[in-house]
């Protein structure tokens, strides 16, 4: 039966995870602006608060008090629904991430994971594939041609890259033999990271992750120079804020997933030989996990400010003709190696 402690513990965990996700997403915007500036010999936002650290708050507050404009010929219900779906889909993925092993509190073992689904990887995959609805619905409801074009791009891009991503994941599950994220992470202790086992799979996965989060060089749905604002062309105020926010949450979630699946999650070498208490090791593990996540997010940002973007047809070609065969090849090789 569900006891009170369990409920409280999960409630706290859920709210903590959500809060941390939101704060990190918020500050990712700041990091992106600041890093972009540094990559470009500039200084970046520095006027809102010391070093500009209040910049995301300023943006958020501004969004809240900005007129939320609904175009006259838009479908009002869907127009409002779109950004919310984006946001919810982005947040939902956090539920199965093992943030750390477990804490011992008052004799209870508290796992730092909201839900340990035994099909966690598939759950993640399913949730990620839902994110496109927000874009599609919002873009279509705007009744704007740029938004519609962007919707077309977004949905076809998502579908195409999901396939390669899924196959890369299959190869990964072949080698780990489980679909539970927690087990996948704990299998990687002591530096036995999956990235060494599945290097090609990881490369495919990270490319697909870029595509799924609409980040450069795959940011076709919202590329400014072609489609103005893409699907959010007609959005203003907090609804726009949701969209922009969802993008950063997605980026955070993908980094988290990659860190968990390929970089050992909260594992770090020699964690058991330090002779520290269980809780301390767990906390250190959480720290290490976040360090990995931030490193990956830095990579996302770094790539964005370096390379040009693909063209729509080239993106499709890359997805279908390069990544998918590669992923299948990778899967077959993995399967053969396991059989041997």
């Amino acid at each position, binding site marked *: 039966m569900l006891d009170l402690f369990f409920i409280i513990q999960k409630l706290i965990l859920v709210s903590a995870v959500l809060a941390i996700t939101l704060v990190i997403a918020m500050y990712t915007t700041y990091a992106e602006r600041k890093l972009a500036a540094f990559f470009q010999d500039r200084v970046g936002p520095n006027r809102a608060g010391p070093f500009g650290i209040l910049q995301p708050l300023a943006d958020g507050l501004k969004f809240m008090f900005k*007129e939320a404009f609904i175009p006259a010929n838009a479908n009002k219900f869907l127009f409002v629904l779109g950004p919310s779906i984006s946001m919810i889909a982005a947040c939902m993925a956090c539920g199965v991430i093992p943030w750390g092993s477990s804490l011992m509190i008052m004799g209870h073992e508290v796992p730092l994971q909201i839900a340990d689904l035994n099909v966690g990887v598939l759950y993640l995959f399913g949730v990620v594939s839902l994110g496109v609805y927000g874009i599609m619905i919002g873009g279509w409801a705007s009744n704007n041609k740029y938004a519609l074009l962007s919707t077309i791009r977004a949905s076809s891009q998502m579908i195409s890259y999901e396939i390669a991503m899924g196959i890369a994941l299959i190869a990964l599950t072949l080698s780990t033999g489980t679909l539970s994220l927690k087990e996948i992470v704990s299998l990687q202790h002591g530096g036995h990271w999956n990235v060494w086992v599945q290097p090609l799979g990881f490369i495919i996965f990270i490319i697909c992750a870029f595509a799924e989060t609409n980040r450069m060089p795959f940011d076709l749905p919202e590329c400014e120079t072609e489609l103005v*604002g893409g699907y959010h062309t007609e959005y203003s105020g907090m609804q726009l804020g949701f969209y922009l926010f969802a993008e950063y949450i997605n980026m955070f979630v993908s980094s988290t997933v990659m860190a968990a699946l390929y970089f050992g999650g909260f594992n770090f070498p020699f964690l058991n030989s330090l002779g520290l208490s269980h809780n301390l090791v767990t906390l250190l593990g959480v720290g290490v996990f976040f360090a990995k996540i931030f490193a990956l997010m830095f990579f996302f940002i770094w790539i964005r400010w370096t390379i040009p973007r693909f063209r729509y047809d080239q993106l499709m070609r890359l997805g279908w003709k390069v990544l998918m065969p590669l992923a299948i090849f990778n899967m077959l090789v993995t399967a053969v190696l396991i059989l041997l």
Partner: protein
Amino acid sequence: MATIVDAPEGVSGQGFFLTSLEKAVGLARKNSIWPLPFATSCCGIEFMATMGSHYDLSRFGSERPSFSPRQADLLMVMGTVAKKLGPILKQVYEQMAEPRWVIAVGACASSGGIFDSYSVMQGIDKVIPVDVYVPGCPPRPEQIIDGLMRVQELAGSEALGRRNSPEYKALLAGYGIL
């Protein structure tokens, strides 16, 4: 057309909410002014220079140009606006969500400048209300930043209810904007 965002109840009434809310919102708006560069000619190049590393508009939180009028807070009209372009400019302004500000950057946008000719609009304030004028042909980036800081002043001190006030509506009506 424009349905202005409903201010929280009580703000328009006297002193129910603390004015600190207004202050906070003002500060937020001030530091997050997203410009819509309506760059038609030379001043647009100086705007690029302002975006560039040497001047770095991002310090003011304004490096994200929003080419969609809905998302922009500040319409920066840079360069000559011919009479042919006037209606488009007005349309862009109408599409912007409140609160919105306008800078006329450079001589052409402010007054027509050197182009006192049959085809050039003699100042964009003939079609849309302008908040800040920046002189120069083109203005130096310093001057553009200066103009932006003026807008920040405006944004930082604006009352939340201003955009619903009859005066503001009268101002817009004076330009034939609903």
